[in-house]
């Protein structure tokens, strides 16, 4: 592989992938908290609509959604998003739907007595959520969010299909230019692995600090995998409730 490809395509590609992951993660987190909290609403219409959203965006494929946003939206609504933002929108909406199940599961796993105590102290519902429920729920969300973040990082490779110049796109160009498929794809795979590893370490750090904040020791995963494992959103929420009950089935 020649030096020019590295400097002009691969390194900027890494940067684009990092940016995509960060922007999509922030957007997905906003969606996850918004939808996840709304699903605990007392109004059935709010619960129904947010549940509908989750089923739609979990039901369809992220790649198909990306193509839809990229090709159909400009024609149907006359509104063309820059391809990078179409990608962020697609990833954020999809992974936000998965994340909302984590948020919902973690909120549901906060001990009922905490909620009752807050009611007894006549907190408003908003105060209850902000001061009692969420501070206890958030540390439980971090391990499943870690898994989701790795899934999101891997899904950013899809944006190369709508011509965003991320690492995968750079790899395609390099392959066309040099024909060294093996080297290029091996390097790209290692790059993704390193990114996933760094993300996981950062999330572990965050978890330790969040748990220390509410006076809990981090859960030791004795035989847990090195980096992560993929779970469906339903399992994610079950996992977070298992942490509370010490994994008792």
């Amino acid at each position: 592989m020649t030096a020019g490809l590295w400097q002009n395509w691969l390194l900027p590609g890494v940067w684009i992938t990092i940016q995509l992951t960060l922007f999509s993660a922030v957007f997905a987190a906003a969606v996850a908290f918004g939808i996840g909290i709304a699903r605990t609403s007392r109004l059935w219409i709010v619960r129904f609509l947010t549940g509908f959203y989750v089923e739609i965006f979990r039901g369809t494929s992220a790649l198909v959604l990306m193509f839809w946003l990229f090709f159909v939206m400009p024609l149907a609504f006359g509104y063309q998003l820059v391809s990078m933002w179409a990608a962020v929108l697609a990833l954020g909406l999809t992974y936000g739907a998965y994340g909302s199940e984590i948020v919902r599961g973690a909120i549901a796993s906060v001990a009922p007595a905490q909620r009752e105590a807050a009611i007894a102290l006549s907190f408003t519902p908003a105060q209850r959520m902000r001061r009692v429920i969420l501070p206890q729920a958030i540390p439980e969300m971090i391990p499943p969010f870690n898994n989701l973040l790795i899934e999101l990082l891997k899904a950013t490779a899809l944006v190369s299909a709508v011509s965003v110049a991320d690492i995968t796109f750079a790899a395609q160009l390099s392959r066309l230019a040099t024909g060294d498929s093996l080297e290029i794809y091996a390097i790209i795979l290692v790059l993704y692995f390193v990114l996933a590893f760094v993300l996981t370490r950062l999330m572990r750090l965050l978890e330790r600090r969040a748990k220390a904040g509410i006076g809990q020791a981090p859960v030791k995963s004795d035989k847990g995998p090195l980096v992560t494992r993929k779970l469906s959103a339903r399992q994610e929420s079950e996992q977070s409730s298992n942490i509370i009950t010490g994994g008792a089935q």
Partner: protein
Amino acid sequence: MTWNWDVAKDFLPELGRGLLITLEATALGSILAFALGLVWAMAFRSPTRFVRWPVAAVVEFIRNTPLLVQLFFFYYVLPTWDIKFSALTTGVIALGLHYSTYTAEVYRAGIDGVPKGQWEAATALSLSRGRTWTAVILPQAIRRVVPALGNYVIAMLKDSPMLALIGVVDMLQKARAEGASSFQYIEPYTMVGIAFIVIAYPASLLMRALERRLGH
């Protein structure tokens, strides 16, 4: 919005043919993922670390790198080693291999869930290692993990459109071809999206029902 029913009607047979390929890729990928995952899970339990560690490292690596890049890797690198497969076969291999690293985790949980007494009983009956696995442990482990495996079939279904990017003529590829030739983008892409929801949603309801039935 300019939805054209005629275009939609014309695309419907194409969508059906694409759907068959999508389902075929998912089904074959699932079979490969189920079989390989079981191999990984049993290798994790190997008594020698010279088996355990390399397998764990490979599984960890595959799991944390994008399926799409693996797909390109197989599609472009295998031919340079004089291994030639069709796009669909390559896609199935990549899909099955990628998801086998997830099903391995499922099997492992199932195997760990078998009470220790069962292993001891098998030893007491002086069953061979092979018989212990096939007659005692696996029948108990697999029954429990069927719903979790089913969830990965749904996940594979939703990841299968990636195969279009190496030229497999699945639903997404049909939509892309339609868009490229006639500039009709709205109807094909929307119909493909709806088709996924129509299949994936009842399937996930089914899995939830199974989970309840099998006592999770």
